[in-house]
């Protein structure tokens, strides 16, 4: 009985593949449309994920800059180090001498001409602090406390842009969610209609099968397989679209990266994300098919 059941499913899967291939143009067009619908939210999602990972550390650990008064003595510096180490909200810190800061400025921002004309280094010595706290108030208290230290010229939050970025990312996530909901509905609708047309061409088979004792699940099976299979293939199409898009974008970014003298490139979909995409797209196809068949079966029930 179990072997017969497996044979049944294998038979249906084969039948479904044949059906998908027997109408190549229709299948291809549906798959492209569904693939595009899937690739939009997934594409925005992967862009967001890239932005988040590029700025990830900054977001998790708000930064502060501690600018020192001119020409601190080594005793001043070690005193500051000791106090920073005792501070629980500071996870790690890093000393940036004014020479290092000037060098970085020359390197990074492509301003060697301007810095070359400076008779002396105008930059202060500084500490970059990576902090962690539950609330922004406790960080604000920390900032005010450090502002009182005699060696300190100014303490500055670097977190304003982080908060802005955070808000933007939140907005981005919201857009991804909305796109995902809208376009998932679109995929379900496309699948619903595809299956509805298939049912129309197989109305006799369905009716007769039901009359001679087919269960609803027997009748649903080939359509559910078809929906899941087409959904899965659309997921693969979406994956390819996104990979292609990222590759093109990375080529464009090479020029930009050269200008900034850094390495900018986007990550492809991770294995987890790829599997989620394929599983979810197969599920959407299955759901659209299921709704479509249920709708038809309900109409032909005896009354």
């Amino acid at each position, binding site marked *: *009985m179990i072997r017969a059941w497996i*044979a049944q499913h294998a038979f249906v899967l084969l039948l479904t593949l044949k059906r998908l291939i027997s109408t190549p143009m229709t299948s291809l067009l549906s798959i492209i449309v569904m693939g595009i619908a899937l690739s939009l939210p997934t594409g925005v999602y992967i862009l967001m994920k890239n932005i988040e990972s590029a700025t990830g550390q900054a977001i998790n650990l708000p930064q502060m800059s501690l600018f020192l008064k001119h020409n601190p003595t080594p005793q001043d510096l070690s005193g500051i180090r000791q106090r920073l180490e005792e501070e629980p909200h500071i996870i790690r810190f890093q000393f940036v001498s004014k020479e290092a800061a000037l060098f970085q400025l020359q390197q990074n921002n492509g301003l060697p001409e301007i810095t070359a004309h400076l008779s002396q280094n105008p930059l202060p010595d500084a500490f970059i602090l990576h902090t962690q706290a539950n609330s922004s108030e406790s960080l604000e208290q920390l900032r005010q406390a450090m502002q009182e230290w005699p060696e300190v010229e100014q303490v500055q939050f670097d977190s304003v842009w982080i908060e802005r970025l955070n808000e933007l990312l939140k907005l981005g996530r919201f857009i991804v969610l909305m796109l995902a909901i809208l376009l998932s509905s679109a995929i379900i609708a496309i699948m619903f209609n595809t299956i509805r047309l298939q049912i129309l061409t197989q109305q*006799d088979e369905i*009716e007769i099968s039901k009359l001679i*004792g087919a*269960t609803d699940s*027997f009748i649903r099976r080939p359509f559910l397989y078809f929906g899941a299979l087409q959904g899965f293939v659309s997921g693969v199409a979406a994956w390819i679209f996104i990979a292609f898009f990222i590759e093109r974008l990375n080529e464009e970014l090479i020029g930009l990266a050269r200008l900034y003298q850094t390495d900018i490139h986007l990550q492809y979909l991770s294995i987890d994300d790829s599997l989620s995409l394929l599983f979810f797209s197969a599920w959407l196809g299955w759901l659209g098919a299921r709704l479509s068949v249920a709708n038809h079966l309900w109409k032909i029930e005896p009354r």
Partner: protein
Amino acid sequence: MIIFKNVSKRYADGFVALNNIDLAVEAGEMIFLTGHSGAGKSTLLKLIAAIERPTSGTITISGQNIAQLKLSAIPFLRRKIGFIFQDHKLLFDRNVFDNVSLPLQISNFDNKTSASRVRAALDKVGLLKKEKAMPITLSGGEQQRLCIARAIVHRPNILIADEPTGNLDVEYAREIMALFNSFNQVGVTIMISTHDGSLLEDTQHRILVLNQGKLAA
């Protein structure tokens, strides 16, 4: 085996197809149902396989009340019945063999058992040599016999035939009747509807007459 009690069927448009039917069919009995077209013969037969549901009354088959049967239980009722439809309901996109194997596919038979049963059924109705033929190429009599093969392939206890000799020559009709008699001899309960009086002239079996939805005594 099949018991109707106060069964009525009224359609949505108000037409009363069956009016207070009381009827008992014994196991192993062969019974004819006759009457004018529109008298309710088809409706009565369809109620047995839950293809139509009664408006009121109870129908019991082997002690099971069909009128109250849940939708999900209906397929399993139909698998116990062989139904020969008035309009054949053959699938014209597949050959004779595949048409007959459909009931077995539905009941999850494995391919080997299925094939031998299909051939046995085709042999019984004399279509064994035509298993690869498409139904459209068969004569009217052959199509009818194909329907019978499909109805008996899963070896049901009950066989229901709605106008099985409807548009066949007398010769063919007698062949079909002989087939039904042979099934009845091995214990199958059979109900056959017909408006063709000539078939009933020399029968030993019970004949029920339906008139405007009522059973005449």
